[in-house]
């Protein structure tokens, strides 16, 4: 009932504060010493963490803020509404925490150019917060573009690095084109409903038959968000951008930005289109796209030697799993996806930061070139092993818990291959990371031959001086990320909060009633008791074991592979064909984007006829 009360006022502040801090930093950045700039940036990010945490804690129901006090009177609402629920606040909180850790990690990064790096990081945070908290379709587009503009510049920030520039341009063109297609869909929806608010559109579309206009508008809107979510075949930009972006930026890209794309899909579907496009239709589309994405991502991940590119493909693979879990279109699957996203952020970001440390110390991220080079680095080696196993879903890490919940939800819906897919993808991605780590830190297995493509990629250093061996500002964030992943897996209360959030995310009627008709929040019924199950623990252990197996095959099976060359040849050809598709050519990516729109149309639209 209470519009714009104290808690609700925090929502726009979490968008505005980072922008104000960025303005301050731009002004002082030219004169102030580096330590002041870093302190201000970290303080700004800390404030946003506080605001988002308050929103997360207070958003048991939904926190609603009609911006600029344009309350929906009797007639047609004209203002923008921010609607904060647990999942929205949770994603914003995740973004703020990762930003804080990335800023701490980068405190001695680069010869800063007038604090531009920190300004862009904070504007990036503002964009992510706005995207997560708003309840208005066009506003989502605006903050999507804000995220994009900051992200393109951050990707290309190492202007001496050729691959970074090319990756940033590919990222910018493909994402922008996706965003314009989304804008077209928004225009179509506006023409149809004369509304821009998600809830208002939902109320207008409820109980209608899905005609061509609604379906096409929906597909167009999905396109932009799915480009961000890196669903195959929209995913090509991701490995280019992640492989080349500065390490602290990769943390935000992999940990939360890509996931925000999936959040956008779920938010728009459940709030606006759930009354007109049946969930069964979406389930098919999600699970097909998710499974293909997971397989392509994990196979490509295994084939990489460039450590950051390997981690980027593992992000694509995990995005496929999140899509499958959320694609069950029920509370438990969505909970699984949310928990998995949080856990994945911890494990994956730790791995990226470790890759950054390796790059700093040895000037390369090629696992073949680095073979055995880092034998003396005990602490990073241990952390790398733990994070890789966490990525593979080892209990009791939150990744394992999210994976288990997702597997349960899929098999409960009759998708028997769900657990198989989850275990296989976890084993392959975790195994690939372990393989690389084992080679780099322990020198396991024979030294791999230097292939042309791996030798060609030289890496531009990101830092001007080598950091001390155990610099707290580097190791601290890594330990915090792994500890967070572990704590989340061990704390049922936090899982309970996320489960309640998932129930609300998919609660179409409740969102509309609370936003438009000031209804009292309906009590979120407890989602099916979510906790560790025996099956979940066993499957988690199995995938961790398989990951070790995959890694060991990578280390020692060169001889076996040579003997089986004739049997493996067709697979090798398929793999090199798939690698050739990831060509770095922006024209190819645009062609795939258009194919993706058609595929999406076929998956969602054709069955509705």
């Amino acid at each position, binding site marked *: 009932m209470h519009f714009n009360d104290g808690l609700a006022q925090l929502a726009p502040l979490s968008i*505005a504060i980072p922008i104000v801090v960025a303005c301050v930093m731009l002004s002082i950045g030219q004169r102030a010493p580096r330590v002041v700039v870093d302190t201000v940036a970290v303080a700004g990010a800390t404030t946003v963490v506080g605001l988002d945490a308050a929103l997360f804690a207070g958003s048991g129901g939904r926190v609603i803020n009609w911006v600029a006090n*344009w309350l929906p009177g009797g007639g047609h609402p*004209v203002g923008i509404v921010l609607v904060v629920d647990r999942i929205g606040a949770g994603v914003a909180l995740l973004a703020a925490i990762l930003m804080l850790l990335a800023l701490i990690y980068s405190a001695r990064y680069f010869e800063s150019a007038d604090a531009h790096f920190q300004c*862009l990081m904070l504007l990036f945070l503002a964009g992510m917060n706005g995207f997560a908290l708003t309840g208005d379709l066009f*506003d989502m587009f605006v903050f999507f573009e804000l995220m994009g503009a900051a992200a393109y*510049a951050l990707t290309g920030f190492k202007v001496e690095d050729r691959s970074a520039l090319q990756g940033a341009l590919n990222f910018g063109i493909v994402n922008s084109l996706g965003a314009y297609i989304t804008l077209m869909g928004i225009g179509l929806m506006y023409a*149809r409903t*004369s509304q821009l608010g998600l809830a208002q559109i939902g109320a207008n579309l409820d109980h209608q038959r899905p005609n061509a206009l609604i379906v096409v508008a929906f597909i167009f809107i999905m396109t932009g968000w799915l480009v961000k979510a890196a669903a195959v075949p929209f995913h090509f930009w991701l490995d280019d951008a992640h492989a080349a972006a500065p390490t602290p930026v990769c943390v935000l890209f992999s940990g939360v930005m890509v996931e925000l794309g999936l959040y956008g899909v779920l938010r728009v579907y459940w709030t606006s289109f759930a009354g007109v496009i049946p969930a069964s239709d979406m389930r098919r589309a999600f699970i097909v796209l998710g499974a293909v994405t997971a397989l392509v991502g994990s196979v490509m991940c295994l084939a990489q030697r460039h450590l950051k590119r390997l981690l980027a493909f593992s992000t694509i693979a995990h995005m496929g799993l999140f899509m499958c879990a959320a694609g069950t279109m029920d509370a438990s699957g969505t909970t699984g996806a949310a928990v998995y996203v949080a856990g994945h952020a911890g494990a994956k970001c730790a791995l990226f930061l470790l890759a950054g440390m390796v790059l700093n110390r040895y000037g390369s991220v090629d696992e073949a070139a680095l073979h055995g080079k880092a034998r003396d680095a005990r602490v990073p080696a241990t952390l790398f092993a733990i994070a890789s196993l966490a990525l593979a879903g080892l209990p009791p890490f939150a990744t394992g818990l999210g994976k288990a919940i997702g597997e349960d939800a899929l098999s409960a819906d009759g998708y028997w291959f769900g657990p198989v897919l989850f275990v296989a993808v976890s084993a392959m991605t975790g195994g690939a990371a372990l393989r690389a780590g084992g080679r780099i830190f322990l020198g396991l297995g024979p030294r791999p031959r230097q292939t042309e493509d791996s030798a060609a990629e030289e890496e531009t250093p990101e830092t001007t001086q080598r950091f001390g061996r155990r610099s707290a500002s580097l190791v601290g964030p890594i330990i915090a990320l792994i500890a967070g992943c572990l704590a989340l897996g061990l704390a049922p209360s936090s899982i309970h909060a996320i489960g309640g959030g998932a129930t609300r995310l998919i609660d179409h009627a409740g969102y509309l009633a609370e936003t438009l008709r000031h209804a009292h929040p309906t009590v979120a019924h407890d989602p099916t008791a979510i906790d560790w199950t025996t099956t979940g623990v066993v499957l988690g252990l199995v995938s961790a074991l398989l990951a070790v197996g995959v890694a060991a095959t990578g280390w020692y099976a060169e001889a076996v592979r040579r003997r089986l060359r004739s049997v493996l040849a067709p697979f090798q050809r398929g793999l090199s064909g798939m690698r050739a598709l990831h060509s770095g050519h922006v024209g*190819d990516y645009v062609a795939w984007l258009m194919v993706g729109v058609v595929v999406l149309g076929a998956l969602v639209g054709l069955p509705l006829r």
Partner: protein
Amino acid sequence: MSRRVRMWMVAIAGAAVAVGMGLAFVDLPSFGGSHHPYRDAAIHGSVAHQTANAVSAVNFDQRGLDTFGEESILFASIIGVSALLRPSKEEQEAGPSQPGRVMEATRILGYAFIPLVLIVGLDVISHGVITPGGGFQGGIILASGIHLLYVAGSYETLGRLRPVRLFEHGEAIGAGAFACLGIAGAATAMGFLANLIPLGSFGQLFSAGTVELLNGAVGIEVGSGVIVLIAKFLDQAILLGPQKS
């Protein structure tokens, strides 16, 4: 992929997308019709807040958060361009190259137009509430006026008149002022970006409450920002000279 394969893919997928668009478009209300419920509500809101230019009312008042996001995009892009086009060490050492020669007619025309462009720009900003135009359009016109000095040939004069650092402050101040006006609304418990100062009367130069102030903030931000933006490109193309490969 070869070029030929790519073009076939684009042709087939593009045709399919075009068919989808066509199916969607014929379901739309027909072009030029009179059914616009959001329009009616927005006009009502605009009149209630004494804003003669309903587009400004939507931009700065009813959907002010969009514009806040939009100005942040501008802000982020300009910082991004500044970062991407920062001169490398070798370029800084190379020093400026000689500017090209300019025709006398170009020079005279350029100087003659500067005051005119500046006046038009200021007029477009200040009347944004009551006539077409506003901070964004006016800001760009102002920035174009300053850069006439470059096309008029005197890059050195431009360098003196255009202390980029100062304009970076201007950009930050404009963007910060927008945000602070928004936060002031939240602090008075009216709501973020609420229209909280006296509204004045319809059609007057100073009407529409905070719309006028936000308009001015955007004008400062866009004007300074675009100057910085063009300055970075100019520095690359002129000052640092053509790239020797």
